[in-house]
């Protein structure tokens, strides 16, 4: 189908989503399609094949209402490497700062001609709102504390590469669970693949309610340390907290920071990942972040592959639904 990446194969008939709003809604089959296709892009990348003409004529707009460097860059590069063009819309923190509603903004951008919009916003549900109001593909690049599907996918892809099947494996997601969209996307994705998830963090940030989402919760990193195959160390979201959920950063590190000592007490082949940007010395000491059990930089490369797969798949489904 594509001369420059034949390994992609035919467009998967089971993929029908023109938007990617979250991992909660995906079936296991759809999740596996995404991961498998992302792996194809990652393998090509490792062989030094980086530029393709898979989506010529496709214009992708990144519409970020929250600060981001790596996700935005990753999406732009992903679009460019597929042969699409990518435009960054410089949105301020609120769509209303110029008196325009966010739906108006999106409609205006679409009127200029674009096939996909990559959206990040501090409010949960904004990508869904936009998907109901535009014709192009909406890709959620993080909506408040709700979902961050491509981050969840790249975390899972990284785990799959190191551990093989995730069936029966135990993944600890540690940190500010209450405010984390990454935690939620991890939970939905990992559970579909048969992994056990433990969300772990201070009792003010990890509610027993998470059990109702089918995961275990813990308030002690030391207690779960010997049980986990993977630790996903979340960043403390200082910007989302209005009242301080713990007394000091020092104390957070004492209780939930991953350091050399804890690493030595964990399973010997423990995999440590972190969505970044990490607060060095808070969630992870440099010894752990830069050590052999860390896959942090691998995650970044996988992120690119995941986003290429997402752009390709949603583009195909959009053409089918919109009869293009």
């Amino acid at each position, binding site marked *: 189908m594509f001369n420059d990446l034949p390994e992609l194969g035919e467009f998967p008939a089971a993929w029908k989503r023109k938007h990617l709003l979250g991992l*909660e809604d995906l079936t296991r089959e759809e999740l596996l399609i995404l991961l498998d296709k992302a792996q194809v892009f990652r393998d090509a990348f490792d062989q030094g094949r980086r530029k393709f003409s898979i989506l010529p004529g496709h214009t992708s707009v990144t519409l970020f209402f929250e600060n981001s460097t790596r996700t935005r860059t990753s999406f732009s590069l992903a679009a460019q490497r597929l042969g699409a063009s990518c435009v960054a819309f410089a949105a301020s923190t*609120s*769509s*209303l700062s110029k008196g325009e*509603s*966010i*739906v108006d903004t999106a409609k205006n951008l679409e009127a200029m001609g674009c096939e996909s919009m990559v959206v990040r*916003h*501090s*409010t*949960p*549900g*904004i990508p*869904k*709102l936009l998907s109901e109001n535009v014709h192009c593909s909406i890709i959620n690049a993080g*909506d*408040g*504390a*709700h*979902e961050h599907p491509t981050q969840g996918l790249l975390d899972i892809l990284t785990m799959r590469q190191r551990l093989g099947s995730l069936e029966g494996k135990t993944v600890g997601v540690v940190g500010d669970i*209450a405010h984390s*969209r990454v935690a*939620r996307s991890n939970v939905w994705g990992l559970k579909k693949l048969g992994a056990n998830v433990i969300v772990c963090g201070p009792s003010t940030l990890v*509610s027993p*309610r*998470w059990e*109702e*989402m089918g995961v275990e919760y813990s308030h002690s990193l030391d207690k779960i340390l010997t049980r986990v195959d993977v630790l996903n160390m979340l960043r403390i979201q200082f910007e989302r907290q*209005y*009242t301080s959920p713990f007394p000091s950063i020092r104390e957070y590190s004492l209780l939930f920071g991953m350091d050399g000592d804890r690493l030595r007490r964990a399973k010997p082949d423990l995999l440590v990942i972190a969505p970044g940007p990490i607060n060095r010395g808070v969630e992870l000491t440099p010894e752990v972040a830069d050590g052999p059990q860390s896959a942090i930089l691998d995650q970044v490369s996988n992120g690119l592959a995941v986003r290429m797969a997402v752009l390709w798949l949603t583009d195909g489904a959009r053409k089918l639904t919109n009869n293009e």
Partner: protein
Amino acid sequence: MIQGILIKNGRVIDPSQNMDCVTNVLIENGRITGFGMQPTGREREIDATGKIVAPGLIDLHTHLREPGFEESETIFTGTDAALNGGYTSICCVPNTNPPIDTQADVEFIQDQAARADHCNVYVIGCISKNREGKELSEMGYLARAGVIGFSDDGSDIENAELLRRAFEYVQMFNLPIMCHTEDSNLTNRGVMNEGIVATRLGLRGIPSLAEDVMTARAIMLAEYTHGKLHLMHISTSKGVQLIREAKKNGVNVTAEVTPHHLTLTEDLLESFDSNLKMAPPLRTRADVDACIEGLLDGTLDCVSTDHAPHSAEKKQREIDLAPFGIVGLETSLAVLNTELILKGRMTWPQLIEKMATNPAKIINLPDGKGTLQVGADADIVLIDPDLKWTVTESEMRSRSKNSPWLGQELTGRAVMVLVNGRIRMKR
């Protein structure tokens, strides 16, 4: 010459005199003058066959938004919406701009309501000057101007000592303190009920605790001061329990519940629709059931709409930035018929009691409002209990359309409203 109105063959429901029978109602000079009279040819005859004839509905909790927020509602449009929903009297809360905290503000509302000439409007005055929660408003002047109660609705009064003084001071005027019970530190910029749904959606939660601690505080203040407390929009099972206990202990407390807290639950927020965002927030099924139970056993005295119009440009924003509140005057009757009466959980006489009889009692309305007794003002609603209709923006008379029921088919609707014997709405 036509003299008087005869409403014929309707099912007349008036809980104030335990009346529920098919009969004729005679109206002369704006008052109810008799039942069971046959037409003499001199009256204007209204055929009410198959309809319910009841005292006009009374809402203790309406946001009319004027002065200050006329883009959302005016006294003209709000009272028109009230008529459309079957209301003959509404009580407007004072969180306008400026807030209603002087005699002049009250008179402005009364003048505008008279110009609109739709339904009766009663004014609730501020507890504190400028609604700032710092000093008592001039409650004596406000009482003289005719307010029927005091409230800083929109937010609670943080200073318990000020609220205590308010409870004590208003006893000179025999008026209720109407409390919006919510601790703003505990709500902590929440958007929806704190629970599993908020956890899943990543929306900030408002714990039921935020309401309950303040409900408990208000009850204790009323008990201690022997003041008269009316609790606004109770939404939690714990709140219902607290009120039940307080009434048992003889505290002078009444309470209202909204149609949405009787029928909708938090899981609807999965749509991220800001028309489901209000304060207090939609709670759990258990809370809804407790509110219904409380309404039926008399713990909750009445249904109030908390009609809270917000213009589309304000409401159609990011859900965490959109204002709290939904409109309710035009849907309350149909929603409660569809969800409670037709599902066998309550009867028409019970609903009329909660929407007309009891509201009038709570605020001691003058002139025999909320009743059809001979001599009472002819404030009457005719309801077609079987009429199926769909909620649409174009049919709503409120200036704002922020309703969670848009597009839904409901059953039962007011088809005629008489205010002081004059037909002010006819469908």
